């Protein structure tokens, strides 16, 4: 139990996927302009990330390894992620059209979110069990959501700041992300 808690905190704060491991930066910079869309994007990603990490784990250990096809892991994982995204879109559309409208254009973007593939590959590299993979994925996804939402709030404030012309837009966003990342360094050492 304690081990699972450590994995969760590690993925959520200490090795935050966006700020310490540089995964999922495209949506982090691209979708964080608005607070509400950041929240929606975060939850859609959480769902897809957890589901695809679990499916990747199962398919690697129970299909690819017995067949001796371990080197096909990247191709398999990409197909799994794309199908999970496709399935989520269909599911959301039939269950809640309103949510689908809100998430609409963000769902397909998750396919090219490297954090999703990154979690699957990292969990594999660390040799985690199924339960550990699930906890790791949830921690990573919540960490991604938290940082995305915090950063969206920061950028709404930046809109009103007097930024030099050359730094408007992406450059100042990157520098403020650096400062946020500096703050997250404070979590290093938490949970050993």
């Amino acid at each position, binding site marked *: 139990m304690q081990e699972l808690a450590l994995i969760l905190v590690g993925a959520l704060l200490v090795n935050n996927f966006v700020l310490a491991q540089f995964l999922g930066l495209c949506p982090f910079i691209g979708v964080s302009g608005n607070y509400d869309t950041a929240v929606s994007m975060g939850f859609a990603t959480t769902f897809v990330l957890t589901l695809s990490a679990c499916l990747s784990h199962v398919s690697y250990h129970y299909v690819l390894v017995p067949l001796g096809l371990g*080197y096909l892991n*990247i191709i398999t994982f990409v197909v799994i992620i794309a199908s999970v995204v496709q399935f989520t879109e269909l599911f959301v559309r039939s269950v809640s059209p309103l949510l689908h409208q809100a998430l609409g254009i963000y769902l397909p973007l998750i396919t*090219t979110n490297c954090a999703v593939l990154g979690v699957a590959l990292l969990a594999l590299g660390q040799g985690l069990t199924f339960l550990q993979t699930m906890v790791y994925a949830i921690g990573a996804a919540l960490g991604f959501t938290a940082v995305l939402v915090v950063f969206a709030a920061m950028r709404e404030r930046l809109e009103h700041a007097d930024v030099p012309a050359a730094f408007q837009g*992406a*450059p100042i*966003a990157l520098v403020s992300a650096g400062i946020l*990342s500096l703050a997250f360094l404070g979590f290093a050492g938490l949970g050993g």
Partner: protein
Amino acid sequence: MSDFGNAVLARNPAWSQLLGLCPLLAVSTSVVNALALSLASGFVLLGANGCIAAIRHWVPQFARLPCFVLVIATFTTCAVLLMQAFSFELYLRVALFVQIIVTNCMILGRVEAFASQHGVLRALADAAGTATGFALALLAVGAVRELLGHGTLMMGMEMLFPGTEDWGMTVSDAGMLLATLPPGAFIVAGLLLGLGNACFRAGGSRLEKQRASES
């Protein structure tokens, strides 16, 4: 030729479109890491762009994205296996980010926007240009971070090209730790991007003024 130049400068994937940021920030701790990832990305980009331009007439419209992603994933797997075979030590440093080339939106973007509509030769020129532009951005951040963080430049090149041990330079013995840590990556990239904006915007507005005065 114009496809190549366009892709390097006007549409530089990293600087003007902010695509492929994850690898740009993650592996730019030193020049050799940056070069290794640029070469791997370039290989995948050339392969995928050329291959998709060749098969573009046989790919049905509704299934094109899955097809493209599979082609890119195939070339990425090749790149991973090649790096494991020829420079394993370096592969260990950048392993995750070589595997993650599949989800680099820069590559899918070029394939979808260019290779699926043009012939093989033009697609290859575009891929070469995009890869060069990406490599330039990656090497710029890598050089600045290695210089600030370790006080060295081009250390460890022999991992990529054997027999180049004397390429490394030591500029100063003291390094600034911040530049090698994750926050340093964001800050250096942000500052470089701002600097680039300042230079290019100034140049651009001068051109516009010139055009305005001519007309």
